[in-house]
């Protein structure tokens, strides 16, 4: 899922401090799972902001709503009849949702309440880590199911580099060396001979480098 982190409250205050009536919109999917922007977090942010502005002696109305998702038209439509009464909206969805909301409600001030980080997994409650960079050409068949593009700090396709130490990456003892993981799994699967295959130069044109991307499926378009 997409993993995000709450923005520090000081940043959010700075964004909306000059408005009078603000709506905080949460999202029931990824940001709920990583506990950054779901209904609970909307409630906490709303309460905290109310107290802050009361303390400043400023009148501020803060309302709360959580949509199923903010990346599909149908759910954002639910705001159609109420959004214009607000001066500004803080969206706790990932960057995708914030932008879609802003596109849909073109004349509404929309602000992000979380920092969107990466596509990743829940290792355990409270710990999320990156797994995929969306390169557009999955090579997991050749790397025993472990991605060197997202998990190697140097995205080496023919790793490891000379800095790999005791299974950890040179940049941090808390980071596993992706190539150590790949080698361990190749060994487990009895495929260590595949290690010596030289991976060819990557076509990065399907990645961010090639420009903003789009997927079109003519067979399902209406």
């Amino acid at each position, binding site marked *: 899922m997409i993993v995000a982190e709450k923005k520090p409250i000081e940043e959010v205050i700075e964004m909306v401090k000059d408005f009078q009536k603000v709506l905080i919109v949460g999202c029931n999917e990824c940001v709920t799972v990583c506990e950054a922007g779901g209904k609970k977090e909307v409630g906490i942010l709303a309460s905290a902001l109310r107290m*802050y502005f*009361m303390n400043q002696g400023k009148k501020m109305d803060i309302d709360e709503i959580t949509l199923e998702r903010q990346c599909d038209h149908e759910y954002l439509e639910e705001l159609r009849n109420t959004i214009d009464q607000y001066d500004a909206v803080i969206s706790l969805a990932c960057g995708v949702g914030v932008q879609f909301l802003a596109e849909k409600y073109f004349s509404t001030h929309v602000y992000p309440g979380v920092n969107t980080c990466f596509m990743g997994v829940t290792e355990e409650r409270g710990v999320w880590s990156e797994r995929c960079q969306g390169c557009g050409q999955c090579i997991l068949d050749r790397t025993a199911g472990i991605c060197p593009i997202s998990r190697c700090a140097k995205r080496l396709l023919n790793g490891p580099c000379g800095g790999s130490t005791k299974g950890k990456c040179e940049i941090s003892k808390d980071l596993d060396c992706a190539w150590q993981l790949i080698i361990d799994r190749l060994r487990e699967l009895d495929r260590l001979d595949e290690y010596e295959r030289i991976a060819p130069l990557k076509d990065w044109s399907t990645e961010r480098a090639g420009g903003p991307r789009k997927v079109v499926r003519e067979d399902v378009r209406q």
Partner: protein
Amino acid sequence: MRLRYPDTIRIIRVPCTGKVDVIHILRAFEKGADGVYVVGCMEGDCRFETGNLRARRRVEHAKTILDAVGVGGDRVKMFNLSSGEGPRFAEYAVEMTDKIKEMGPNPIKRFREKRAA
């Protein structure tokens, strides 16, 4: 035991302090409470194993938020005792009340009173 403790305290009973969430603490302050404290079982003795540990972490989190918004993280605190310790319960009550009295009222109340006026 019929021990005495300050009557400025409103007690809310929960089956386990693990039920207390950050939002409950924040809402209390939002509505004008001057202080909030959470009293749970001794660590290691929680009947539901980790309920009181969750409560502690949530109290810590609430502290950070209360500091950031200018209400003051010292207004919330976690205490631990075992259910038979009546005198200690009273002791904590007095300790917390005295501390809050010293800190003064919840700063957001000035605004609420102004609005009411």
